[in-house]
């Protein structure tokens, strides 16, 4: 019966901030800030694109989707063409939903501006081959030819986004979002003689400690640590673009913080209670 109280307390801790739409400012995260600065410094010029790999499935959608949203939004705002794909077949829904949701929000914010499919972004869908595909990305001198067709079956070579795009040197930035350490493969193979694009990574909280080594060595240009990383990035966007319509990441982060505090509190209470009963037994 006691466990039911724990479930209820944790559920309430998560639900109350969501129902009341409570959001407290998130803590400053230097690795997320680094990533923000990298995206800010990217050249918004013809012949340069960014690739965003949404290598996640529904089981890590809470963290990875929030991270992807802030990065893609930032790239859209900076008018850097975005090529979306995934190495996992189950990411199909998110590849379609995320850019549409962001464009809907941006269109509300500034109705005069437009983001066009094929010009500002393209969805390549699921890309088969994992490591082999990434190696081909680094080696090919015909990127549109490698991609072939987008997820809707249209030939990508004729799209304006790929005008002047030949190889990896045209990719100024790559970001990967995942619940596993697939980033290893990107670090290993997403490079060309004398050129490595700036690489950002959005891991789930579980694998964040593993990713720090790559940040320290400079193999990653920035990191979004789970939902807190996305929330801090969202705040940076808010600061840079004051008219920005707020999204839910900061509320989610608040709910998460409340739940974590409750867990800590429950751990302390349980330990104190056990300690007192132990003292009583041994007295």
């Amino acid at each position, binding site marked *: 019966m006691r466990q039911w109280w724990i479930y209820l307390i944790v559920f309430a801790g*998560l639900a109350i901030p969501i129902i009341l739409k409570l959001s407290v400012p998130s803590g400053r995260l230097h690795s997320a800030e680094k990533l923000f600065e990298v995206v800010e410094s990217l050249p918004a010029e013809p012949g340069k694109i960014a690739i965003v790999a949404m290598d996640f499935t529904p089981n890590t959608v809470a963290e990875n989707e929030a991270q992807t949203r802030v990065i893609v939004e930032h790239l859209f705002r900076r008018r850097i063409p975005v090529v979306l794909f995934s190495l996992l077949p189950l990411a199909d829904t998110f590849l379609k939903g995320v850019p549409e949701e962001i464009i809907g929000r941006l269109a509300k914010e500034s109705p005069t501006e437009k983001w066009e499919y094929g010009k500002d972004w393209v969805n390549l869908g*699921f890309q088969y081959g994992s490591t082999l595909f990434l190696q081909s990305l680094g080696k090919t001198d015909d990127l549109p030819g490698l991609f072939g067709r987008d997820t809707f079956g249209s030939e990508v070579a004729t799209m304006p986004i790929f005008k002047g795009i030949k190889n990896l040197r045209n990719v100024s930035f790559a970001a990967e979002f995942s619940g596993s350490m697939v980033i290893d493969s990107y670090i290993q193979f997403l490079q060309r003689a004398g050129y490595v694009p700036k690489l950002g990574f959005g891991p789930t*909280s*579980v694998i964040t400690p593993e990713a720090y080594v790559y940040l320290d060595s400079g193999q990653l240009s920035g990191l979004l640590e*789970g939902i807190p990383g996305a929330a801090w990035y969202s705040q940076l966007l808010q600061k840079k673009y004051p008219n920005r319509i707020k999204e839910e990441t900061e509320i*989610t982060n608040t709910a998460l913080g409340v*739940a974590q505090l409750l867990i800590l509190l429950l751990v302390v209470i349980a330990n104190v209670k056990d300690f007192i009963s132990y003292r009583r037994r041994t007295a």
Partner: protein
Amino acid sequence: MSLEIWISLLGGFCTIGIFTFLWRENAFYRMLEHFFIGIAVGYGPVLVTKEFLWPKVLAPLLGLNRVVFPDGSYEEPYNYWYLLFALALLFGSLYYFIFSRRLSWLAKIVIGFSIGATAGLGFRGWFAEMIPQFSSSMKPLVVFEEGKAIDWITSLGNIAFVFTLVSVMTYFFFSFKSESKMVKGLSSSGRWMMMICFGAFFGSTVMGRMALLVERVQFLLGDWWSAVRVVVG
């Protein structure tokens, strides 16, 4: 009622059904668990066929990815190099001989090829991944700022890094037995450092699990509850 409402209702029904496991193991939970596994297993191959096997292998091989004009002629002639795809398909299909006792050696050729290719890629990838890590591990213990003053924060960070690196490596050094107090002390510190690291991992894991729950709670309180209100009126 729109399709979205039905999808939200079904999603909520399945989520609550899975959560019944918190009460106890039950048949309803088992049924939904099997549904989920079945859907995931079925969805994968269909998508691989739809997104990769057909558009990137079979359609070019059969010449069906070319534009056909109303008079029945093609935009471009058939590229005979695509016939090489058939060789790759046949070679890969040898894997299925694993089910035959007499001809399973044919499958071993494909497996051997896969192992060789993976090992080759791994070998190349290891260097690309690890060499920058080795070089970044060589950190100066005392860092000076531009004005020649010591940058204490970076220096202390580097000292902590190098100490952790050396102590953990000492812990995993089993080649020689050492009775030296210094080596034993370092090894013991290495174990403590790893314990702290595992604690950080565990903390992150709890946060990750909470993040999974928060997404479901958001769904139940948002989409699902709105759908229920539409149904109830």
